[in-house]
């Protein structure tokens, strides 16, 4: 990474010779040449980093007061809400923070899908991202179990039971996971341990994600390569630091709206009832951000098949760079893909809606159609589109379309 950082003081020179950490940060967070045409959809990377750090910090303090024991977990959470200084604030930030994290990651992924950010030479950035998403799912799921409410308990029961679908070893694996013959204290304790560990693994992957990003540099709305050493890029600081911070503040306003004014809107009321192994809730629903995948799981009439399809729905993302055969990155220049993109997104939202409905009647049928379409998008539509689609001509450089717009504006003004 190019940098014009020159240590000035004797101390700075001494350190930089031995550990050039300031040079490193200067290169990656200040000088880093960034395409100048990034829109606000590109601010979610920074927002996600904020979410991760917020979750780790609030989680750390919560862990100081939480007790991972089936008898005590529920009341220890209420102890945090009532007696710990600003415990209610920490817990509401942490609980809503998970939702905000997923809102941001879905937007971040949708942006990638639209502008083809997963394509050559950025395949690894995308694949690392898929692994981060997987870890996020695991972390969020285990976190939701910790308050030990009814949905915690029964959600954990449903999901851990999925492992029993594995042929031959299913039951032994499930019992091994549980540390017993049903969901109870042993599972709660290990979930707490893992819930504490995984965010740090996510943090490690985020470093790899950014490292891989900084090799080719950012994609951009035009989806074309920047011309090195041209007017196409601006230094990351202050241009994108300030823009990202502005976007982050707007994001925080929404975040604060949830935390302070409707902190329980995104949760389930049943989770304020202490876990009761003898009483099954009427509908067991996961958190909203898992609903599309939950709908896929339930759409398949066979348990093992459902698990396979649900896992595949996420795993297939890792193969996206090769399933999409088009060389053109940005949907701006792909008229057909653009339409299928919006249909895919609508279908994904539909799956989310279906995941919240009872698995009966018409919902099952629609779920099946929507599940099939989800996979058809990846294994049929995307590969075929690359061959049949007539893409629009690409601009020669990032500066070109910008100039064109300006010229057009100038013409319109003079006319």
């Amino acid at each position, binding site marked *: 990474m190019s940098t014009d950082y020159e240590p000035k003081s004797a101390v700075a020179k001494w350190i930089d010779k031995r550990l050039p950490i300031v040079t490193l940060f200067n290169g990656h967070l200040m000088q880093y040449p960034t395409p*100048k045409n990034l829109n606000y959809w590109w601010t979610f990377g920074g927002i996600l980093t904020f979410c991760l750090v917020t979750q780790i910090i609030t989680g750390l303090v919560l862990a100081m007061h939480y007790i991972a024991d089936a008898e005590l977990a529920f*009341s220890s959470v*209420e102890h945090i*809400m*009532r007696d710990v200084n600003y415990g*209610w*604030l920490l817990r*509401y930030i942490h609980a809503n923070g998970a939702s905000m994290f997923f809102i941001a990651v879905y937007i971040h992924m949708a942006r990638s899908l639209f502008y083809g950010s997963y394509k050559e030479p950025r395949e690894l950035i995308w694949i690392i991202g898929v692994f981060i998403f997987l870890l996020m799912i695991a972390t969020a799921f285990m976190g939701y179990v910790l308050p030990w409410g009814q949905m915690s308990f029964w959600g954990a029961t449903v999901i851990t039971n999925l492992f029993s679908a594995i042929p031959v070893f299913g039951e032994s694996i499930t019992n091994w996971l549980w540390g017993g013959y049903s969901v109870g204290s042993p599972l709660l304790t290990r979930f707490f341990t893992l819930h504490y560990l995984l965010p740090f693994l996510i943090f490690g992957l985020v470093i790899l994600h950014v490292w891989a990003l900084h090799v080719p540099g950012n994609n951009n709305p035009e989806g074309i390569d920047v011309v090195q050493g041209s007017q196409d890029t*601006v230094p990351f600081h*202050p*241009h994108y630091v*300030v*823009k990202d*911070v*502005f976007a982050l*503040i*707007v994001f*925080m*306003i929404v975040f*604060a*709206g949830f*935390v*302070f*004014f409707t*902190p*329980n809107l995104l949760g389930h*009321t*049943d989770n*304020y*009832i202490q876990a009761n192994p003898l009483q099954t809730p009427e509908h067991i629903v996961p958190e909203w951000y898992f609903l599309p995948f939950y709908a896929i799981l339930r759409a398949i009439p066979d348990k093992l098949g459902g698990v396979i399809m649900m896992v595949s729905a996420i795993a297939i993302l890792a193969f996206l760079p090769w399933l999409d055969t088009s060389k053109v990155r940005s949907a701006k220049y792909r*008229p*057909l893909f653009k*339409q299928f993109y919006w*249909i895919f997104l*609508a*279908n994904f939202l*539909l799956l989310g*809606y*279906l995941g919240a*409905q009872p698995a009966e*009647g*018409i*919902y099952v049928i*629609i779920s099946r*159609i929507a599940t099939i379409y989800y996979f058809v998008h990846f294994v049929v539509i995307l590969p075929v589109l690359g061959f049949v689609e*007539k893409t629009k001509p690409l601009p020669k450089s990032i500066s070109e379309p*910008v100039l064109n717009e*300006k010229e057009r504006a100038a013409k319109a003004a003079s006319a």
Partner: protein
Amino acid sequence: MKRRGQRKLHQLSVFRSIKYILSILLAVSAYQSTSIAAEIHEPMRPYWSFEGPLGKFERASLQRGYQVYTEVCSGCHSMDLLSYRNLIQPGGPEFSEKQAKAMAAMFEVETGPDQDGEMFMRPAILSDKFVSPWENEQQARAANGGAYPPDLSVIVKARPNGADYIYSLLLGYKDAPEGTDLDDGVYYNEYAKGMRIAMPQVLYEDGVEYTDGTAATEEQMAHDVTTFLTWSAEPKLEERKRMGFKVIIYLLILAFLFYFTNKAIWKDSH
């Protein structure tokens, strides 16, 4: 020119037909969900002082609500998560320390062991949890025909429609329509699941004599006790909303500043 136009039309029709299919599917499922919802009574929506971004509890209502809870509900329902000290905390009923101590002293708690290793009873003090009417769940069930009166500490957050639902349920007792089969110990209530509930009607006019002289109508008592239960479920509600208001104002100002900083920085870069 002509060819391009045709192609566009073709693409549009693909998009449209899929849109049609989706909208039909959505309409069908929406119809289904409304038909399911029709079996459940929507709760009443009375005015609550604690709603809205700057909502606060009505202090007098919280105090009356505590009275209703102790005199009516606490015979069957515990509130394990509350302590008597909570009654004097800011944002709650805000009884004086003297009042709260007297209220606590009306209950006896088992403590010990003493020097001889014996457990003994003493009047409750501020640091004690609300005394439960039952020794254990089994005793509660045995006394209530098998039904377990739930703990009320967070009940408002544990039910869809929260305060509206609790209020409606307390006032929802009606004579069962003809032909309704009701088992022994089961009562008809419009807002209960399946219109049946194991709790009998408990609020009757003048069921309590309010110390502040308020007329104890059924609606008044339901309103007061629901306000009290909302506070017990969310004791930091007032502090939360007050802080939230400041946080949002602060963030709005910060956003305003950063918006123009950003604009200034990018001025020459396009």
